[in-house]
């Protein structure tokens, strides 16, 4: 198959798991002799050239929070429109790629920052089949510039857009559809995955009396529950426990997070390790440097690759009760699910420290299941099947590339004047 992959970012330009998963699937498809081209944005840092990767899209500045916060309401509104609704420039890049590469199917990833609705609208208009990997509620985000769902845009999306979706959890589907954005066509839930070779069974698990080595990785922010983890450390110390440590890997996006450990008197137990490349982190799990992966993330976590990677090596997942990855694992069988609070986490850690929860059977079962059912080698044939099915589906439209670009130009200008007027009203109401 000839597969054109669209992604806002592509490694080594990454923010999180979305882009890393994209590269892993691209590499797997190429290994299986598919012709794959990646169309992504000009990188935010210099990147080495790769023959199969074209960095021609323009990414709207939607991830630089500090710069966005310093910008005026009007500038932000125009960025939001270009980021979520439509960028005629990017539609032109897409139609050029469709003309030159002639894909059988387009494989969509995260389209925020690219004027994603315009790209999907273009594919619909010209009848190009697509499959959309949903590692987050991207269609809903695209219909919600200025963090507010536009009902008319959501209704048009629901009316016009139809294709193949691969969300990572039911939670993602619910979050999109509860907002009024319908996913029409074929929807097949597909989990995230691990890579690598299954290691020998882990022999060393935590035993009471040892130091319990807790780890977490990802964005260091309150929505990921890092503040709760620090609070749990404080509670454990208050209860007289000192034989534990918490290592935190990832960039701190919230400046209030890092000082929190010292402020709560657990600066010696909680260590912010900063960003760690994925392969190094996996190597640490493989060396069994940690016993427990804490994942007290928010309810709307779509999946969560980081705990999956850790659990593959017997590092037991302790996650909040309602998060995407929790749909795939059973509490007390493969993982520990805990109330999302500092007290809930502290109570669970305490039970482990006291030996009332044995990590070994949990770690063994989760590891076995992950290597069997959640390895990319297991999932890639299913992904291929969905791509193939989509490529053979009847075309959704018969429009031309020129028309699609013309429509994008019109839509872009209409979006700009609309957001300009909205921002103007907002400014007037504030004044």
């Amino acid at each position, binding site marked *: 198959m000839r597969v054109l992959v669209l992604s806002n970012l592509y490694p080594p330009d990454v923010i999180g798991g979305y882009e890393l998963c994209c590269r892993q699937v691209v590499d797997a498809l190429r290994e299986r002799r598919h012709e794959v081209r990646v169309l992504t944005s000009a990188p935010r840092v210099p990147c080495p050239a790769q023959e199969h990767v074209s960095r021609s899209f323009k990414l709207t500045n939607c991830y630089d929070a500090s710069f966005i916060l310093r910008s005026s309401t009007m500038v932000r509104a125009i960025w939001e429109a270009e980021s979520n609704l439509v960028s005629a420039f990017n539609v032109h890049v897409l139609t050029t790629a469709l003309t030159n590469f002639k894909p059988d199917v387009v494989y969509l990833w995260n389209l925020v920052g690219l004027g994603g609705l315009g790209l999907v609208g273009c594919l619909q208009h010209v009848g190009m089949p697509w499959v959309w990997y949903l590692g987050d509620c991207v269609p809903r985000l695209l219909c919600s510039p200025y963090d507010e769902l536009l009902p008319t845009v959501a209704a048009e999306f629901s009316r016009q857009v139809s294709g193949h979706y691969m969300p990572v959890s039911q939670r993602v589907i619910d979050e999109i559809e509860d907002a009024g954005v319908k996913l029409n066509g074929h929807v097949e839930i597909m989990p995230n995955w691990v890579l690598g070779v299954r290691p020998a069974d882990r022999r060393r698990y935590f035993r009471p009396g040892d130091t319990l080595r807790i780890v977490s990785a990802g964005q260091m922010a309150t929505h990921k529950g890092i503040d709760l983890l620090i609070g749990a450390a404080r509670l454990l110390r208050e209860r007289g426990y000192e034989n534990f440590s918490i290592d935190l890997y990832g960039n701190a996006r919230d400046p209030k997070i890092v000082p929190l450990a010292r402020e709560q008197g657990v600066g010696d137990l909680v260590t912010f390790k900063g960003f760690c490349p994925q392969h190094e982190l996996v190597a640490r799990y493989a060396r069994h440097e940690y016993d427990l992966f804490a994942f007290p993330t928010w309810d709307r976590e779509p999946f969560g690759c980081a705990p999956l990677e850790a659990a593959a090596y017997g590092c037991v997942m302790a996650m909040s009760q309602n998060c995407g990855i929790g749909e795939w694992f059973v509490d007390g069988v493969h993982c520990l699910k805990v109330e999302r609070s500092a007290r809930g986490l502290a109570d669970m850690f305490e039970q482990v420290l006291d030996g009332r929860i044995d990590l070994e059977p949990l770690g063994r079962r989760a590891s076995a299941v992950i290597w069997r059912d959640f390895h990319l080698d297991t999932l890639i044939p299913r992904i291929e099947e969905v791509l193939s099915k989509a490529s053979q589906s009847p075309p959704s439209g018969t429009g031309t590339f020129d028309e699609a670009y*013309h429509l994008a130009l019109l839509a872009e200008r209409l979006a700009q004047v609309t957001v300009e007027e909205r921002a103007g009203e907002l400014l007037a109401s504030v004044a």
Partner: protein
Amino acid sequence: MPQTKIAYLGLFDGDRASGFSRGEEHLLALARGVLAASQGRLSVELLSCGPAPECRPLCPGVVKRVLPWAGRPRTPWEAGSWQLPAALADASLVHLHDGFSRACEIGLLVAKQRHVPICLTEYGLVGHWLSIELGLQALADMMICHSQSVAVPWRARMPVEVVSGRVNPHWFGVASEWPLTAPVPPACPDDELPPDVDYATLGAELSAIYHKVLVRHREAAA
């Protein structure tokens, strides 16, 4: 027999600018002519966006619908409505009666993206946004002109039909030409001429054009 709904957009904004109802009278007369010729097969909805939403029949088969406008348009021609896409949902064909109003731009975008056929009446105005900046008239499935001289430049690019009657768009009021900074031009000046049209004849011509466009569209989709 189920009726085929034709949505009319455009020309109403001049009425709002001037306080006259020249656009509405012209479109209503046109719609009556179309209905008479179609022998009940067609219905027409006259759509516009304004501050006072309403929906009322003007005569059997013709409904006037004013959608609530979004925001505060700076000129009457910049009025759009978030409800316009939904209002076009059951239209089988969209006829845009001007190429310079926001409502027509939105109608063009929504209808084209949905693969609903579009007719656009072109009066030969120059210097207006759609034409000078983007050449978007070419997105219409059929261009309708009231004179050969207006039709000639388009013949090589798209299907064009020349219909009877003389219609002067300035009679209804048109938006400022680009790049004039004055947002509202003098609307409906007294020295402009009213349409010189036999609406029964023009209605029959339009009815036949709609039929042709719809048949061609169905064949292309099949």
